[in-house]
């Protein structure tokens, strides 16, 4: 705002109003996925879905989100809270809580990146409530599970009254705080392909336990004997659309893992990052972390995949 200009304040935040209570809304509780979809159909775009609530409710207190209707889907925890191996795929229900993702030994064996990441997502009490679906749908650029799911080449199952559609993580992400989930739709499941001789890892730098990432990187690799058959890296908090850096995958494919390779790939990650300076760190530092954490994640993922960890 230029000096000397006058302004009548409009939004609550413009007015210097601080957090404490959400604006009024109507509360509905969904008892099944179909019921949730019916409620969304009926209530339209003024309705928001709440799961764990740890992202949405603070935004409502700030009155950055002022839905007229809130649809509570916590009763769907039984229907959508699961981690299942089906064929060559892990299927995770959208209402699976962070704590369940952290504590699942099966997941830790098949996809160790989940335990790596969940250990450093928020804190144990928040993890009791927060969900996989909630995290992905919030689509915060500093949110860890998007990077995890992209490194794992996951896909998302989205349901509406017209049935289900499956989208890749690439298509799921539309930008910061934006996803492919449209009005009247709900994310129900995340599917992750399982491949033999594969593993994954996640590294995050945070200023303090429970803080959002200064930067983080997740890597997943599939080995073919002594070479990397396929590798993916997802980055977090270092710029938009970095949940899968394609040049990294290209650089890894068919290569023998080595510190030189990791450094080369780390440099690609850093070159593709476009972080901004904020209170978490300088842009230069975050670019450096994109490299450093990519290297560490790849090193770990390869070690795990080759049984050297």
């Amino acid at each position, binding site marked *: 705002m230029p000096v000397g200009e*006058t*302004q009548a304040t409009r939004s609550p935040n413009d007015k210097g109003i601080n957090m404490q209570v959400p604006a009024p809304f109507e509360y509905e509780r969904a008892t099944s996925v179909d019921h949730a979809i019916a409620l969304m159909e009926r209530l339209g775009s003024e309705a928001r879905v709440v799961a764990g609530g740890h992202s949405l409710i603070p935004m409502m207190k700030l009155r950055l989100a002022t839905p007229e209707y809130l649809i509570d889907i916590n009763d769907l925890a039984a229907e959508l809270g699961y981690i299942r191996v089906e064929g060559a795929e892990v299927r995770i229900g959208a209402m699976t809580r962070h704590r369940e993702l952290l504590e699942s030994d099966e997941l830790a064996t098949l996809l160790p990146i989940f335990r790596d990441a969940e250990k450093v997502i928020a804190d144990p009490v928040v993890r009791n409530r927060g969900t996989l679906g909630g995290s992905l749908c919030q689509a915060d650029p500093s949110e860890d599970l998007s990077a995890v799911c992209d490194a794992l080449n996951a896909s998302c199952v989205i349901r509406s009254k017209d049935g289900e559609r499956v989208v890749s993580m690439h298509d799921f992400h539309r930008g910061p705080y934006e996803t492919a989930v449209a009005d009247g739709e709900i994310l129900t499941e995340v599917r992750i392909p399982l491949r033999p001789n594969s593993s994954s890892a996640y590294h995050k730098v945070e200023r303090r336990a429970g803080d959002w990432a200064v930067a983080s990187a997740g890597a997943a690799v599939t080995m073919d004997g002594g070479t990397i058959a396929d590798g993916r890296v997802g980055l977090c908090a270092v710029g938009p659309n970095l949940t899968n850096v394609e040049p990294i995958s290209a650089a890894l494919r068919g290569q023998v893992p080595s510190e030189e390779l990791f450094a080369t790939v780390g440099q690609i990650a850093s070159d593709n990052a476009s972080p901004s300076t904020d*209170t978490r760190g*300088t842009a230069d530092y975050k670019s450096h972390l994109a490299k450093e954490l990519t290297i560490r994640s790849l090193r770990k993922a390869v070690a795990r995949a080759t049984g050297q960890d």
Partner: protein
Amino acid sequence: MTVTEDPVDTNAVPTPDNNLNDHKPNGFGRMLRKEDPRLVRGRGQFCDDVTVPGMLHLAILRAPMAHARIVSIDKSAAEAHPKVKAVVTGEDLAAHNLAWMPTLSNDVQAVLATDKVRFQHQEVAFVVAEDRYSARDALELIDVEYEWLEPVIDVRKALEPDAPVIRDDLDGKTDNHCFDWEAGDAEATEAIFADARENGVVVTEDIVYPRVHPAPMETCACVADLDPVSGKLTLWSTTQAPHAHRTVYALVAGLPEHKIRVIAPDIGGGFGNKVPIYPGYVCSIVASLLIGKPVKWAEDRTENLVSTGFARDYIMRGEIAATKEGKIRAVRTEVLADHGAFNGVAAPVKYPAGFFGVFTGSYDLEAAYAHMSAVYTNKAPGGVAYACSFRITEAVYLIERMVDVLAYDLEMDPAELRLNNFIQPEQFPYESKTGWVYDSGDYEPTMRKAMGMAGYDELRKEQAEKRERGELMGIGISFFTEAVGAGPRKDMDILGLGMADGCELRVHPTGKAVVRLSVKTQGQGHETTFAQIIAEEIGIPPEDIDVVHGDTDNTPFGLGTYGSRSTPVSGAAAALVARKVRDKAQIIASGMLEASVADVEYEAGTFRIKGDPEKSVTIQDIAMKAHGAGDLPEGLEGGLEAQICYNPENLTYPFGAYICVVDVDPGTAEVKVRRFVAVDDCGTQINPMIIEGQVHGGLADGVGMALMEMISFDEDGNCLAGSLMDYLIPTAMEVPDWETGHTVTPSPHHPIGAKGIGESATVGSPPAIVNAVVDALKPYGIRHADMPLTPSRVWEAMRGNHTPPI
């Protein structure tokens, strides 16, 4: 003066089999707290727990920008809200002459802005409504039109000739200068620096102590209940200084002082945040006066962080003149202090820079000089808070950082350098070159003890091996001396109120007692330690002594709890009031024992005839006699009680040696505090368990300030740390298991030899941690990096960027 070993091993951990408590019936020692049974049941009563019938709720509208002229305020829509009882603006307050209030530094501060807003989130209007939620809703309905003004955010530019003038409310004010202050002898200091430049060494470093915030877990709140019939105001309030607040309210609101009762219920942490009087309290009083009903105001976390008393914000240039052999000869500093939009510093009036004058530290110098310019900026007011002992945090950080800078340049071991420069035990009482008289000290044994506990030599060996391998390990030392317990009334007052404290003790007929204090616990355990002081002096068990505090109608006058002053001032008052009672008890005992007063001796609650131990009476017997039937010795009134107002002769000077070990990840620049050894000397110990707790808490504060805490602003003056998502406080994951120890050097002038301990660790720990990180970064050729040492700032420091952008 003696220095003794630990009275107890404070690192020993109680178990269900061994509670470690002292089993002697009375007096000093480890004793469980009397406060705890209610607090662990959730039955404490904090301010927001107070509910009064008919109570309304107040919420404050704040300015969204840092500097702007108020063009107009339209409150009609808010007033039309069905649950709103009142909407009040600065103009409304001005009509009652209540728009401005005095600060504790004799400046004025707007209760609600009338002309301009001078910092982001300044109070602009308030709403009173039937419930908490409606009050917040109605804030949205107030329309304020602002004319934006250029803000002054960079303190270094505040005094430039073309800088906008923030305080145009002050008559004839044409710049942003707040005050200048100096201490020591400039000429003598320069003479030594001139000599050292020729023949010795001079080191200079620019050091920033950033703006931080005490952020107690409980935010500020109050309930104001002005009875329209009696005209009496009862104010439940989060205040560390209930009596001082009462007097200020009397002066501001024009209420007669006897018609004001300030009650400080349980307080969820203070750390200096609850010393000032905030607009919210005054608004609540005004609202209750206007509406005739009780009114509650409970600040939210953002309001707490962005508008209430911050701490530090000193930009310091430090200089040391020394010999090439490492004898420190003189210290000099030039300070630029950011006081925000109003000078709201809560410090003794003659000490606008607080006790920063003790920046000469624990060292015997030939000369010292400090000069400070304090300025106004478009930021929240405050400055003295967060367990700083009136700015000794800044002073200790400066000298302890500078000594390490000198050690770096001289390539000397920082422990050895300190040991070579300590004030020696025979020099006490020691008058510093800035005029402070250190009461007692014996520094070397404390330092040696810390080095022994840490295994200092082994740590240096380990560090050398790790450096060979490219690993970054750092060892940081700080040795601090504090000056606490303000203070002698000849020198120290706040708004004209002398910094003495009253105490009143009544022994009931059955030998139980009540002691009434002017100070107020915010977690320090006064209900326990003050009972122990009385118990030690007159032998009534602590559990038989009720400690009353935090209620101006029921306690004697005094200035409250901050600056580690409760034990040095009020604790002395308690000991002396007990001795007054004991003296009277001795006379009564002499009558009961039919002996002369001089022939009666006292020990642990029992009065005996010297040489005839069989003939004795207990304090309980005497209490009944004092109130009972039968004659008392000639000229003696009945009853067993006394009152005192204690004016301390001097401050007390606790000290300590801290050693911190850190590991730094060379790739990510993350810092891990591996170990922290703290050896404190606070003189006589009343309750070692509570002392250890005070130290632990302060050490965690140090980790916070050194590694993560900062209130920062963007160039428009928007506060970037307005929630606990952005203002980071250490969790259990960032702190090590503390290793504590003690030496005991009693204060010669304090009745029980005790010194303040409440802030020692907050004061002493930041330099130890920063020194450790800088030591770890030695291979990068770095001798200083500014707090908070977040990973990003450490990484930038490794690359030689000494002035981090954020």
